[in-house]
């Protein structure tokens, strides 16, 4: 779960990491009021969960409240790489004397935690890694001992950061642990002309699996099929194509999307209904997919592992009964294989639902669904 910059900075503030004074605004008028409160030149920053805001014109300076309102008017609603800036962060303009980079992250390759620190901040870290990899200090963090004052001091020294930065590093690690983050990144971490260390930007990714032990309130406004699916506990990702896909197991569903693409059609979504999918889950899944106006055909791809295919078939039949009229109109191609596949296929054949057609193999089912989506 990625946070917006303003949310990341709220966390930083709570953990004693210096950040510029400021607040988030959803309208130009709010931006004006915040600028007036701050009483100094301000920076208006688009709140989007993507990089390259500056280049896209999403970061602007304003000498006073009137200019802040004007600039916020330009930035709010702006599209940056497909992300709409619904809010801006209005902050006291802070001039860097030096710019650094600091991050803690989960290191997938080593199965541990990694610190990445550099005295050359400001640019994208991927760019720095490509042009001057030696400028980035990488240190594995022992998950038992973590980053104490001494580790932080060594980290700062090794990367060529001033000693004052060590305390900020230690506190960033605290954010990592206390908030169950998988990434805490500050770029740039700056030193001001008066020798203060300030987090000028912030990127934090939290671990959704740890939500049960936090009281996070980072819900997005519900406006999409993805939100509706999430509310029903479904694992759904909207894509651009026309073949709706339902399957059991994340790997099998990803594979199904690829096979649909290989058959010449684009998948409309990812939807994993999991192992012991009940009729209700199948109905919820079909309902979400059929609510997508882009969908021209549906592919249900189930491999019965633990779940028996006759149970899945009964689930599909019940789901279609629950959906009634909504289950008609678009063809539903079903592939059942594995445990009790023959019994499952028989149940579907006997149900004779007008929208359902069965294909015994995954490849064949994907081809059929692709062809039907193309209107053939």
């Amino acid at each position, binding site marked *: 779960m990625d946070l917006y910059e303003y949310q990341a900075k709220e966390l930083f503030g709570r953990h004693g990491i210096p950040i510029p004074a400021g607040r988030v605004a959803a309208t130009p008028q709010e931006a004006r009021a915040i600028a007036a409160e701050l009483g100094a030149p301000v920076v208006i920053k688009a709140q989007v969960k993507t990089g390259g805001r500056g280049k896209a014109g999403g970061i602007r300076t304003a000498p006073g409240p009137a200019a802040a309102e004007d600039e916020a008017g330009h930035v709010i609603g702006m599209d940056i790489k497909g992300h709409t800036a619904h809010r801006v962060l209005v902050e006291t303009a802070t001039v860097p004397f030096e710019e650094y980079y600091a991050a803690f992250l989960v290191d*997938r390759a080593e*199965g541990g935690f990694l610190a990445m620190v550099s005295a050359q901040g400001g640019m994208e870290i991927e760019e720095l890694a490509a042009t001057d990899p030696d400028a980035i200090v990488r240190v594995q963090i022992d998950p038992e001992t973590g980053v104490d004052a001494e580790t932080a001091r060594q980290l700062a020294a090794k990367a060529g950061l001033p000693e004052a930065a060590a305390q900020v590093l230690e506190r960033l690690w605290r954010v990592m642990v206390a908030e169950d983050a998988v990434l805490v990144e500050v770029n740039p971490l700056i030193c001001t002309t008066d020798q203060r260390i300030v987090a000028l930007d912030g990127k934090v990714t939290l671990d959704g699996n740890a939500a049960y032990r936090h009281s996070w309130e980072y819900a997005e406004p519900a406006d999409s099929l993805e939100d509706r699916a999430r509310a029903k506990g479904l694992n759904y*990702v909207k894509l651009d194509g026309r073949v709706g896909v339902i399957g059991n197991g994340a*790997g099998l569903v990803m594979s199904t999307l690829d096979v649909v693409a290989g058959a010449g059609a684009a998948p409309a979504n990812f939807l994993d209904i999991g192992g012991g999918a009940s009729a209700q889950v199948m109905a919820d899944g079909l309902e979400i997919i059929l609510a997508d106006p882009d969908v021209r055909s549906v592919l249900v791809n189930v491999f019965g592992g633990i779940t028996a295919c006759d149970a899945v078939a009964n689930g599909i039949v019940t789901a279609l009964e629950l959906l009634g009229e909504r289950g008609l109109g678009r063809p539903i191609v079903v592939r059942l294989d594995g445990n009790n596949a023959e019994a499952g296929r028989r149940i579907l054949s006997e149900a004779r639902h007008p929208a359902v057609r069965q294909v015994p*193999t995954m490849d064949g089912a994907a081809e059929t669904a692709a062809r039907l989506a193309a209107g053939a």
Partner: protein
Amino acid sequence: MAIFLTKDSRVLVQGMTGAEGTRHTARMLAAGTDVVAGVTPGKGGRTVDFGERTVPVFGSVAEAAAETGAEVSVVFVPPRFTFGAVEEAVAARVPLCVVITEGVPVHDTVRFRALAARAGTRIIGPNCPGLISPGQSSAGIIPADITSAGRIGLVSKSGTLTYQLMYELRDLGFSTAVGIGGDPVVGTTHIDCLAAFQEDPGTDAIVMIGEIGGDAEERAAAYIAGHVTKPVVAYVAGFTAPEGKTMGHAGAIVSGSSGTAQAKKEALEAVGVRVGRTPSETARLLRSALGRLSP
């Protein structure tokens, strides 16, 4: 032969008295697994009757291991109790701990992985279907009736794709199939399994299943180039996955330009591993690598 798990492995189940634990313990027993103990804190002294066998329940892994000589633990406890359960298994020096639980916070996984590394415990998972050596033993939830014993080894991040490939190759059978799990941090990697299959005299060829996210497949490719002489075929899922979206598994995410299926496929092909475009093509590639035609 097999890797990590044989008919002689004595298995204990943490969380055996819970619904999932009971259900899957029954399945494991039916698959031939020597389930010798269950562990549920506070429920020591009870027994659970599975028909053909009555399994004693202990209050701690230490007790269960001491009494029964269990050398494999399968963990079915909910996410919030998983760290404690694994910590206990590691402290009791159980050599293999299979964590089925989905939804374990990654900080917990990193911490118990470090503990296990120090103690010499192998962790498989979390968020995995476990492993099966067909005809011998099953530690986890992989269905035992898909196929029987054979000479193919399989390692996969995905449960259902494991089942799919086992099904496609059911006439040939498997030495061991290991589901390593779809989380960003897991205890046992593709490389660990490749190394074990290379050493296993009962394995002739290896199927490796990967998916988007991280660089485990690229690392496995480098390892294969230097260490694996047995034929390996691979499948990678997620070519159509958009950037920045988690596809079901917590670890299945393309970040920027890293973790793409295409990069993984290219890395594997560069070291001579044939990569199927679909599960069924992958099965055909394995057959041709073994010189065995379709049934």
